[in-house]
């Protein structure tokens, strides 16, 4: 774990759970597996406070615990899950756009509380809608089917149930077959059975399935890339292919299962109004595209197509890196980069010839990129003494390494954004407190007024005037500036996080999958 990742994670935690939790998490991140007492000693917090932090973390699935060989209980924080907290708003938005407002509420509750039973979810949502005083009260009967839909689409999964306790440590079941099974609704059962099922329903806790959300966001990225390259119809076709294959393919698989034209054409006709002829044209266009992640597997079934996910993510990451190069070093340097990308290892002389830029300028640009580690150099010595005269210097671009480098940069950027926001908040803490007080007073005043009184409108106006006079012009300006700064920081954070997501996916796929390694090993054994 790098220091910038640690800094980012601890700032995410201190934003969500307070500064003390941030400090405790810093120790956890720096030390790895840590015991309770060590944590308390290193973070200089009281044991009781550290305990409070730890069970908050465990409740939000950020920390797991294990008995070490020496018998002490050790806690470990998962950076991957901490990073997911940046994506929470996106998860909530995804749920809203796919399944409507109720799903949005469900996912929001789960994001907010970490894990919840279905009963608690229903209770919280009804409480929330009641408090808001909206007319669109959501009933339990409405929530249940949408919840089941979310679970069957695997956006929500079960929290592993506790099987027993050993030595003061709860043991979690490792069953995977019923991760997405919802116990039947209590009301539909006969009353004798009801009590039993209600009990089990309460015991089952639900959490967000981060991987499924990642897969959905990944699919969105691939589809929008095609929208930019071809048009919106191509985007929709890709979305349909990915949607169909989602349920069929194993999440650990690298490429989707093949989908035949016979299957695809009725769906596209129904949803997009595209006839079969046009669809075949689109498919051939997609296959021939330089993005080449759509593969034609076979001619059977009027053509079977699949999407190569690692290639798609790598291409996406590459195009992001290219645009970074273009912005950072200019278009001439971008030409050099592109030449290196296409031709692999090249000598300096060859680069100068290929890019058609004056040798001196090309050299300068190339060296600048080498200096900032966007281009790597390999020494190929003719003799064993590595004398520069008799050594070839080959320049090349390694996308995987670059993705890792930029990932690191993204962590740093996000960490800085978090620090900045924290600082802005702390600087104008007093102002914000005053503002919230004024708002509370305003609410009280308007509530206290009797709407049936004859001079209601006049009194209301007076109240508003009074409230307005509470804050000075300078303060108002400051508040406005602050909210603008906040939204700008959030916007920057979102954009960085999008890049980070693509880079992380690219790195995720560049590591050979377990299944692949196993199958390769098997193949070797067979040979």
């Amino acid at each position: 774990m790098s220091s910038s990742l640690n800094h980012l994670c601890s700032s995410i935690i201190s934003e969500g759970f307070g500064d003390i939790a941030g400090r405790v998490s810093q120790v956890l991140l720096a030390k790895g597996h840590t015991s309770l007492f060590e944590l308390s000693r290193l973070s200089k917090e009281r044991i009781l406070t550290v305990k409070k932090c730890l069970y908050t973390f465990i409740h939000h699935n950020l920390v797991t615990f294990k008995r070490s060989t020496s018998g002490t209980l050790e806690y470990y924080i998962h950076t991957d899950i901490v990073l997911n907290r940046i994506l929470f708003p996106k998860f909530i938005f995804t749920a809203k756009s796919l399944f409507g407002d109720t799903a949005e509420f469900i996912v929001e509750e789960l994001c907010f509380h970490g894990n919840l039973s279905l009963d608690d979810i229903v209770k919280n949502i009804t409480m929330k809608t009641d408090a808001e005083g909206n007319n669109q009260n959501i009933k339990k009967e409405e929530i249940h089917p949408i919840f089941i839909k979310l679970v069957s689409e695997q956006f929500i999964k079960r929290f592993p149930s506790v099987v027993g306790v050993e030595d003061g440590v709860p043991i979690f079941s490792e069953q995977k077959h019923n991760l997405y099974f919802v116990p039947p609704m209590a009301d539909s059962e006969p009353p004798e059975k009801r009590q039993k099922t209600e009990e089990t329903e309460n015991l089952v806790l639900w959490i967000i399935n981060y991987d499924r959300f990642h897969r959905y966001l990944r699919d969105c990225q691939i589809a929008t890339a095609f929208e930019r390259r071809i048009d919106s119809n191509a985007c929709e076709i890709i979305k349909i292919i990915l949607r169909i294959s989602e349920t069929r393919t194993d999440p650990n698989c690298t490429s989707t299962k093949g989908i035949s034209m016979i299957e695809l054409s009725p769906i596209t006709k129904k949803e997009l109004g595209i006839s079969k002829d046009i669809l075949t044209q689109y498919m051939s266009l997609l296959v021939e595209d330089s993005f080449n992640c759509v593969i034609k597997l076979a001619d059977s079934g009027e053509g079977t197509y699949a999407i190569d996910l690692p290639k798609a993510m790598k291409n996406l990451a590459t195009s992001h890196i290219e645009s970074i190069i273009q912005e950072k070093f200019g278009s001439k340097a971008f030409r050099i980069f592109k030449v290196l990308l296409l031709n692999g290892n090249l000598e300096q002389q060859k680069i100068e010839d290929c890019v058609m830029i004056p040798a001196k300028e090309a050299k300068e640009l190339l060296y600048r990129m080498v200096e900032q580690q966007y281009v790597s150099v390999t020494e190929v010595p003719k003799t064993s003494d590595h004398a520069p005269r008799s050594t070839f210097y080959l320049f090349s671009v390694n996308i995987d390494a670059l993705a890792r480098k930029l990932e690191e940069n993204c962590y740093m950027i996000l960490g800085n954004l978090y620090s900045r926001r924290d600082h802005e908040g702390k600087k104008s803490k007093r102002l914000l407190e005053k503002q919230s007080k004024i708002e509370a007073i305003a609410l009280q005043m308007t509530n206290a007024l009797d709407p049936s009184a004859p001079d209601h409108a006049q009194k209301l106006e007076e109240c508003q005037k009074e409230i307005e006079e509470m804050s000075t012009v300078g303060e108002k300006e400051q508040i406005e500036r602050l909210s603008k700064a906040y939204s700008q920081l959030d916007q920057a954070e979102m954009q960085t996080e999008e890049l980070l997501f693509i880079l992380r996916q690219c790195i995720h796929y560049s590591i050979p999958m377990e299944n692949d390694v196993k199958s390769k090993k098997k193949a070797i054994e067979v040979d």
Partner: protein
Amino acid sequence: MAGRGRGRGGRGVSFNIDQLGFGRGEALPKATLQPPPTFPNVTQVDKILKKLEFDLTDSVLYLQPLTQQVHPLQTSEEISYIIAVKQNFRNKMRESGYNVLAEKDKCLKKYSDKYQLGIQNGSWEPNLKILPSELHPKKKKMRKMVKPNITKLKLDADKKLKELEEFEKVNDDDDVEEEEKKNEEGIIEEEEYDEEDLEETDYNMTYFDNGESYGGDDDDDLDEDALY
């Protein structure tokens, strides 16, 4: 010795300069005699500040000098909705019980505590099932409240009183009383003696300096002489 016989001066480096891409007659870049520009580049930072409308004067600057123009951030309805969700979520988190606050010292009550509004956190109960027993909040040990068996005691007390009354009637002689008084005085005397004992152990009383240890410097001198 290794460099002997390669001519004097002229070539400062041991390798062919052509390798670095300089032609035969080309002039080499001049040696830098100036320190590099200070970091961060202040004029660049100022430009960014004006653009972002931030007041960064009070914080340490980590900004790198930019060589290119900054692009404006993307905006769309979707993004603004997500940002609104984000800010809402953040505020909710801060006001919730998940915001870990320090345990307040219960022994020290401050006057200002009374008037501190602060964040009023909603409380939440952790699910103890998924926690190791180490983290479970300690149960307060309830002291067993044993009710005294009053009726029995009352009976006993009555009995005892009666016994004592009888006892008084039997030993109603003056001699006995006198003896008792003498005994009591003896006890008091003994106690006084004890106090004197205690005083004697006092440091000030026993400490006596006869002055023997004073002025022993001569001995030291002798010792030092013996070293020679």
